[in-house]
């Protein structure tokens, strides 16, 4: 029910959102590689951050897993403060999903986004039971140090067809717009 160009558009939107919101500093590299579903790491203690974008026609799930190693932790945590890594990862995932939400708004008028939730990484292998029209996983490497695994899952309630035009320069975030 999701057309080929829609699938391609969804992937490109994810790429753009990840590349603009995951790196901590503006110049950091973000390499993205597609990986097969069974390559997902499901260590028993591993947790993932889950977010949902809902529209009348579909719902999109973004699942991010931050590798539990020093490289990833050091990259994302600025001060070794009271924050649990989970909170920091949840916020990063929130920003990434927010960017996807903003882009999708150009093609679907009314969208809503959930707050992030933490789940066991073992849940990801069961995504097929949701009957998705699009399911893909990616491995992201940030600044050659941090590793993040991402899964994008889209369940369509009606035929979806659109072409994303990502050529527009992203409006700078962080600026205060006074009313």
């Amino acid at each position: 029910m999701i057309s080929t160009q829609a699938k391609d558009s969804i992937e490109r939107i994810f790429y753009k959102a990840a590349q603009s919101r995951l790196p901590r500093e503006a110049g950091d590299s973000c390499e993205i590689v597609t990986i097969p579903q069974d390559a997902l790491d499901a260590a028993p203690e591993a947790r993932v951050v889950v977010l949902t974008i809902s529209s009348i026609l579909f719902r999109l799930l973004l699942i991010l897993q931050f590798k539990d190693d020093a490289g990833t932790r050091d990259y994302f945590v600025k001060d070794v403060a009271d924050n649990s890594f989970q909170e920091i990862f949840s916020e990063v995932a929130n920003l990434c999903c927010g960017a996807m939400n903003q882009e999708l708004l150009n093609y679907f008028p009314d969208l809503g986004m959930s707050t992030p939730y933490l789940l066991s990484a073992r849940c990801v292998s069961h995504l097929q039971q949701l009957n998705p029209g699009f399911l893909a996983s990616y491995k992201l490497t940030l600044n050659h140090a941090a590793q993040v695994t991402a899964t994008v899952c889209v369940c369509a309630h009606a035929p979806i067809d659109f072409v994303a035009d990502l050529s527009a320069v992203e409006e700078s975030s962080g600026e205060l717009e006074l009313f």
Partner: protein
Amino acid sequence: MSKILVVDDSSTVRDEVAGFLRKNGLDVDTAVDGRDGLAKLKASPGTKLVISDVNMPNMDGLTMVEKIRGELANSAVNIIMLTTESSPAMKERGKAAGVKGWIVKPFKGEAVLETFKKLAS
């Protein structure tokens, strides 16, 4: 020193924003969601500026703003939304509810510090 209230369900954001403002000499309190924000504002009517996320559990940011202007009858406090949301419909709802400004995350402290200082004085 005037009071600022930062409302966000993510402790990362609360620490980042409140930490930055405190480093610049401002007096800041925090709340974890809309309901908490409402309670804290009610307890400190002298608060001059509220910086709030939109997507939060228990009570979202815009509902909190509507209640601040409605039930709390507080039309004086300046409210800025700090959120991943950027849709015109949301901004319109914010404007109608009495929000003064809108910032799309991620937060860039230096860019807004002066304005925040002015709004909090």
